[in-house]
């Protein structure tokens, strides 16, 4: 991954077409730039003021034939480039005629959530089969985001209050960056994940396993590489989430603190801290309640009642966050049902317990 690249990987049906167009435009640009630089250097040397021998005549008249000819030539070239790029753009933006695999995508600060037709949900990861046209139906719950997969040469702004469709067909299995390309606030640069392009068979298997509670590492986008529980999630770059695809799962853990450590890693990799801040020095109030010391304490709810933050309540708040909302916070947390396995849920609760109470 750290090898020096000059050109991005291409993994969609359109990527190759966009690259050819881009390289053609670069070639024309280089020709123009070369002509301008060359002309300047050549004239600057030939007509330097110390060169009295150079032939000089004073030309005043507007050579309108030259100017009009230039305008005509540039118009033709421009219209050529415009047409090429426009036709390709229409191709990208037009719905495919055949059947598509539909996936719903929801963006919110600073999480991508995708839901497959089977009901399987994943966060900051998107699994798609190779060679099949996929339709993404995207919307945002808060501000404008942008769905960007460089390897697909595909970008689409995701707007609140509107559903936007994009289509693509992945052509090469592998794992590719998913970025948010429209600035959306604090953790904009961490709002990303991976698109996993799988062979159809693998995809079907993943879907079957993922839909039953996600005991496969892929359901979490492989973000298991955070062994240090205290790494603040705010500082996460997208690249730090790398892990080899299909990394072997660790054995079930028995010891309490080992479970808490796993919970901490999950807490970091799921970016929970982007809302549930763990640093007390934040300039502005966090979007979600602070979780340090919450375990076993009474919590005041929106409806005026009080509830004890015990294990059942915490589990409920992760799986069904809107059931009982803490006073003073908007009901914005996505549900992690179908995303976390029972094991992982226990690990998270163990981590919260370890934060004191």
């Amino acid at each position: 991954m750290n090898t020096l690249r000059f050109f991005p990987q291409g993994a969609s049906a359109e990527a190759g077409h966009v690259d050819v167009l881009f390289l053609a435009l670069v070639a024309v640009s280089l020709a123009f730039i070369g002509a301008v630089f060359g002309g300047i250097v050549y004239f600057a040397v030939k007509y330097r003021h110390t060169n009295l021998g150079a032939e000089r005549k004073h030309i005043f008249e507007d050579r309108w034939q030259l100017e009009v000819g230039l305008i005509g030539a540039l118009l033709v070239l421009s219209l050529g480039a415009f047409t090429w790029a426009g036709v390709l753009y229409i191709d990208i933006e037009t719905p495919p005629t055949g059947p598509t695999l539909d996936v719903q995508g929801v963006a919110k600060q600073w999480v991508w959530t995708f839901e497959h037709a089977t009901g399987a949900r994943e966060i900051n990861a998107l699994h798609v089969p190779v060679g099949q046209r996929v339709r993404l139906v995207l919307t945002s719950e808060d501000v404008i985001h942008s769905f960007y997969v460089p390897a697909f040469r595909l970008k689409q702004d995701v707007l609140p209050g509107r559903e936007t469709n994009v289509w693509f067909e992945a052509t090469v299995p592998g794992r590719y960056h998913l970025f948010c390309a429209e600035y959306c606030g604090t953790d904009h640069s961490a709002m990303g994940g991976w698109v996993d392009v799988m062979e159809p068979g693998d995809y079907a298997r993943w879907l079957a396993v993922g839909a039953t509670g996600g005991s496969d590492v892929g359901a979490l986008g492989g973000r298991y590489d955070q062994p240090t529980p205290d790494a603040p999630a705010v500082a996460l770059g997208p690249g730090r989430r790398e892990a080899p695809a299909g990394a072997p799962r660790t054995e079930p853990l028995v010891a309490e603190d080992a479970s808490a450590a796993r919970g901490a890693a999950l807490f970091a990799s799921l970016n929970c801290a982007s809302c549930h801040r763990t640093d007390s020095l934040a300039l502005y109030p966090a979007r979600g309640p602070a979780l340090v010391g919450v375990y076993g304490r009474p919590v005041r709810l929106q409806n005026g009642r009080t509830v004890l933050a015990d294990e059942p309540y915490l589990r409920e708040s992760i799986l069904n966050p809107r059931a009982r909302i803490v006073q003073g916070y908007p009901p914005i947390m996505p549900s992690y049902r179908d995303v976390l396995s029972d094991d992982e849920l226990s690990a998270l609760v163990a981590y919260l317990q370890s934060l004191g109470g």
Partner: protein
Amino acid sequence: MTTTAPSPFAPPPEATRTTYLNAGTGLRSWLLTTDHKRIAVLYTLAITAFFGLGGVMAFLMRLELLTPPSDLFTIDTYNRLFSAHGIVMVWFFLIPSIPTTLGNFLLPLMIGTRDLAFPRLNLLSFYIFLVGGLFTLAAVSFGGIDTGWTFYTPYSTSFSQTRVFLVVMGIFVMGFSSILTGLNFVVTTHTLRAPGMTWNRLPLFVWSLYATSLIQILATPVLTLTLVLLGMERWFGVGIFDPALGGDPILFEHLFWFYSHPAVYIMILPGLGVISELITCFSRKHIFGYNWIAGSSLAIAAFGFLVWGHHMFVSGQSVYAGLVFSVLSFVVAIPSAIKVFNWIATLYMGRIYLRTPMLYAFAFIGLFVIGGMTGLIVASLAVDVHVHDTYFVVAHFHYIMVGGMLTAYLGGLHFWWPKITGKLYPEGWGIAAAILIFVGFNLTFLPQFIMGYLGMPRRYGAYAPEFQVYHVLSTAGSTVLGVAYLLPLGYLLWSLKYGPDAGPNPWNATGLEWTTPSPPPPDNFDEAPVVRDMPYAYHLEHRQFMDPDEAGALAAKKASRSED
């Protein structure tokens, strides 16, 4: 004032001559001046300070980006840095830069009049600008703003918890300064031209200022209204842009870019005008295609209003709208190409002097062409779907704004420095700085094209490790660039005290501004000028060399060499 007024019959000796610099002393005489030349100096000080501030922010960002994680600053700090960098550079450096400094100083001198049409309005513009700037500085100092310079809704109206109010107020106020300056320039150009200064004898710099002023007058009110709407939503919850309140976020993008794309031409057009002046003077040749260069400025101003949607190809606007905006974006590039062609044609059969301003002019043309060609790549719809909001776009507009506009400003500043201050700057230092700026600039921004096409999104304080090598190159370049920008600051200030006297016309240049002493007297001209020549009459015998004795010396040298 203790000096006696100059008599029209017997001008006093040089030492006691009254200039705009010594015509009044004390802070009051500067802060309450209505002399366009003094106001230009005030603006120069202000925008230099803003440029320094914006530059330091850029350098801090480049330092953060040396490593992939967000480690030097918190991510919130980084977001505030790039927002403030953009806001300060766009509204408090690039937009006012050339018009309010060189334009303010030179417009009356170039058309042969005593001052702008509304001298007091000019001073008012300056103070409005200053108040706007102070609002923005206050915002930066007390908490900052994290919306980016584009203020996209609903983030800016319903989500950001930063100092949106102060900054929006600052830009709202500054907009009036821009409108009033534009108005002043247009009226001045129409009404105060000297006898014989017909429209087809107008210096090309004046033409470009005129076109710029038209955009300032027509486009800025749209920004003002947009900011009012933004404020209505943010503070009174009036639903205009936020869908949660029944608004449309795309509407904000349309309104914002309806100003901000023409604003790009507010920034670059005056630079194009400066380059036309430099190229012809240091080629000792009449400018090639005068009418086409002047006309292309107007064409850019007109077409510039019709391309704003090319910022929104992936926003969800209609495919057909995208097609129209794309084709118009190709068309708007043609007048710029015409200028480049005419500049190079001017060099042909010229007598070229590689002095500092000419080096800046050459650097400008090269960087402007790179910025322009990559602009066409960005205007190509299918490619823009990939490169939009990546470093490719960042590199593209920095080639125009910094490589273009700032280079033109520095070239113009060196060219007219002897006129403004009466002193010559040290040529060797000037050439060294110009070369260093060119090298540093390219090292900073060329790698950004590559990482942009690789997919590096902009406005990321933390990024994937495969982009690091390009970020390191870019930061190295920005270090060179930072040092290079300090050089002119040093030697230009040095020349104020130690530089040799320039005399009225050190370049043996045409143009009315060179017919009056340097620095000019308070009323610009000792007698009202009358224009009898075509512009840029460098073909005349006495204009062909920068130093009239040079021809003989060179011929003698050549003769003696051939004897050996």
